[in-house]
């Protein structure tokens, strides 16, 4: 659906995209994860043909996003991260207008989405809060029959309840065979929705894969109560961030050393044990470790 290879884009002396790669397969929800300024919005704007890449390849729905604007845009819908609306048009008018410009919208779905997002379409856009403006853009995009959704931090400003509605809608869209590129810096959102994730940083892709694959590469967190004082963990290679509090231990361990660590624990005697796979947050920090400060970053920065 989307193929980007070695994409470069500079604004003056700022390099927004620095050899970015991205591959979005049909039918998947692809998370584009990165902090502010990583190049997420620039990537999406290149895919929309709003920006022209300096070099590299960008293909979208089998076409060139810069040249085949009208043909491609009929088949996609876009939700910007920062939604501005014409102040004297009502939300309903904006939804209809954008839908018609895209080639028509599904009236039934429009009504359904308005109800689920609890959006009053008769209000003038200037009276909407940030969250409500975001809902206007979401309803406009989701009520169209398109193959691809480009969502640029689409939940900014939505409350948790509406966030849940948004997630439901995206899952439904996937069930109907649509593809979505979801940019976000909200890890839990991507974690909940994305089939695959591209982590980008400073305009470059640093990691791609399913969450399962990524988790496989990352450390497992173990928290255990032991029968006695822990032994052997301090010097064991592959164990990190060990915290001992009496008979309680907490540590992270590399996947290939997991077995060894468990043996060390059971040799003392385990009374309770929880382990959890790395959260996206932890994956994320692995790549941003050198930027963040504090203990946690230091703990996970060695990959």
């Amino acid at each position, binding site marked *: 659906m989307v193929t980007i290879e070695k994409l470069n884009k500079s604004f003056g002396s700022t390099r927004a995209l620095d050899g970015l790669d991205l591959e979005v397969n049909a039918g998947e929800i692809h998370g584009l994860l990165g902090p502010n300024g990583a190049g997420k919005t620039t990537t999406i704007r290149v895919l929309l043909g709003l920006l022209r890449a300096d070099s590299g390849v960008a293909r979208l729905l089998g076409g060139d996003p810069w040249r085949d604007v009208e043909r491609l845009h009929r088949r996609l819908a876009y939700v910007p991260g920062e939604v501005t609306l014409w102040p004297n048009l009502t939300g309903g008018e904006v939804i209809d207008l954008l839908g018609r*410009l895209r080639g028509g919208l599904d009236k039934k779905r429009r009504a359904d989405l308005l109800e689920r997002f609890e959006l009053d379409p008769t209000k003038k856009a200037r009276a909407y809060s940030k969250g409500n403006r975001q809902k206007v853009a979401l309803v406009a995009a989701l009520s169209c029959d398109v193959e691809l959704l480009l969502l640029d931090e689409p939940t900014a400003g939505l409350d948790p309840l509406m966030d849940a509605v948004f997630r439901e809608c995206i899952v439904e869209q996937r069930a109907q065979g649509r593809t979505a590129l979801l940019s976000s810096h909200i890890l839990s959102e991507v974690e909940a929705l994305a089939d695959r994730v591209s982590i980008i940083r400073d305009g470059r892709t640093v990691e791609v894969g399913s969450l399962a694959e990524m988790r496989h590469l990352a450390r497992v967190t173990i928290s255990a109560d032991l029968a006695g004082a822990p032994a052997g963990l301090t010097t064991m290679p592959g164990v990190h961030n060990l915290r001992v509090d009496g008979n309680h231990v907490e540590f992270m361990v590399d996947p290939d050393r997991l077995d060894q660590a468990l043996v060390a624990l059971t040799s003392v005697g385990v009374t309770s044990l929880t382990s959890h796979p790395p959260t996206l947050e932890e994956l994320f920090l692995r790549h941003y470790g050198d930027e963040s400060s504090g203990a946690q970053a230091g703990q996970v920065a060695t990959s």
Partner: protein
Amino acid sequence: MSSLVGTGALVRLALRRDRIILAAFIVILVVMVAASANATIKLYPSLASRLEVAATINDATATLAMYGPIHDDTSIGALATFKTGMLGAVAVAVLALLIVIRHTRTEEETGRLELLGATVVGRHAPLTAALLVAGGAGLVSGVGTAVGLIAVGLPTAGSVVMGLGFVCLGIVFAAVAGVTAQLARSARPAAGMAGAALGVAYLVRAIGDASTANGFGWISWLSPVGWWQQSRPFAGNMWWVLALMLVVAVAVSALAYVLAARRDFAAGLLPDRPGPATASASLRSPLALAWRLQRGSLFTWAATFATVGVVVGGLVSSVGNFANNPQARDFIIKLGGEHILTDAYLALELGIMGILAAVFGVRSVMRLRAEESSLLAEPVLATAVGRVRWAWSHLTVALAGSALLLVAVGCSAGLVSALQLNDPGLGVRILVGALVQIPAAWSVIGIVVAAFGLVPRAIVIGWVALLAFVLLGEFGPLFNLSQAVMNISPFAHVPRIPGGAFAIAPMLWLTAIAAGLIVLGLGGFRRRDVG
């Protein structure tokens, strides 16, 4: 006065943001006023020549309506500033009202004020800061003008009254803008309302000044612009009229504060009514959207043009026949007219309407850039709408709208004139005289489109070009600029009708230049980044 906390910081912020434009405005104003006074003094060294010219000016309806009378025909100061005085005072008023809107409603609408409001900024600080900056800009303009006029050798008292008059008219319209900023929810209509108030004030004064001979001179006293005229710099120096203006400015400002205290942040005084839940069937193209966004403004402009046409046409019967001595003739030629006749009067007024139609066109087509930088273009361009098709939306409104305005003024002025003088032929000539302005207005729109496509950050070039054309037309002859320089302005090529001969050639090549600039601009827009 906790409601004023932070005013100083806001004033500094405003000055920081506007330092270049304010400095440029004040320098251009002071230099134009002083230089044109200097040129006039040299042009009319003898008292006899001044008496003659002043008599001519005071007899010509066109000049009375445009600039007002010369109250003392022996005063060199009154003659040397009769044009720049009126234009300068109005320019300061425009500057003041734009400053106030820019630092109140615009800031509120964009949400920037909210950012500031969360810091230690009192409730009335933004309005106060805006009024202070506008008043300060007026004060510097006025002092500079007074110093400039004294420097070229005009009497001190008159120069000071002239300068103070600029300040006072500026403050009055700063206060008016302070009120309209509370009434309207958006900056555009707020500025539009304040500008309309200035336009009406100008028009009322024009009617009064032009019909003094018929005993209706008192009408001028209904207008703040008329009060400025009645302060009579160099011709009696009526200081107390300036005091009257100050009193009115204070009263209007007080009203602005009362209104500001009675409304919520980001709200207008009128509550928002719910609108339609679905778009009408016609709202389905970028052009329909542009029309929807601009139709209110276009209707207001069209109504104004039609009204001005009625006034211009109504004054046609009071245009007298004037002395045809060579010197008076010479001066009228320098004013831009070719004959001191009804025709010259009409051609002059229609020329001004042509420039005003270009003002609408520039404002209207600049909407493209405004939509782009406020991210409103992005969702539209993300649909199946190509860039060029999108750009044509506001461009079409600008081109058709400016033409419509000229049709409106041509029809109304033509109809009223024809009825007044019982001369249907004149009506037709007036309509033609309005229509020939269209290609010139379009070429200014073309400049904006070219800037939009090629150098979008420097789109202000459009306003700079229009201002330059106006200055060339108004003051080029006075400064004896060569025709080649004055020909830079598209308006210099418009046939002066009625009176002059119609020529098709300039119409065609002005239209061709406009088309060329538009093609250039759209080509550039297709190739550049959006945002």
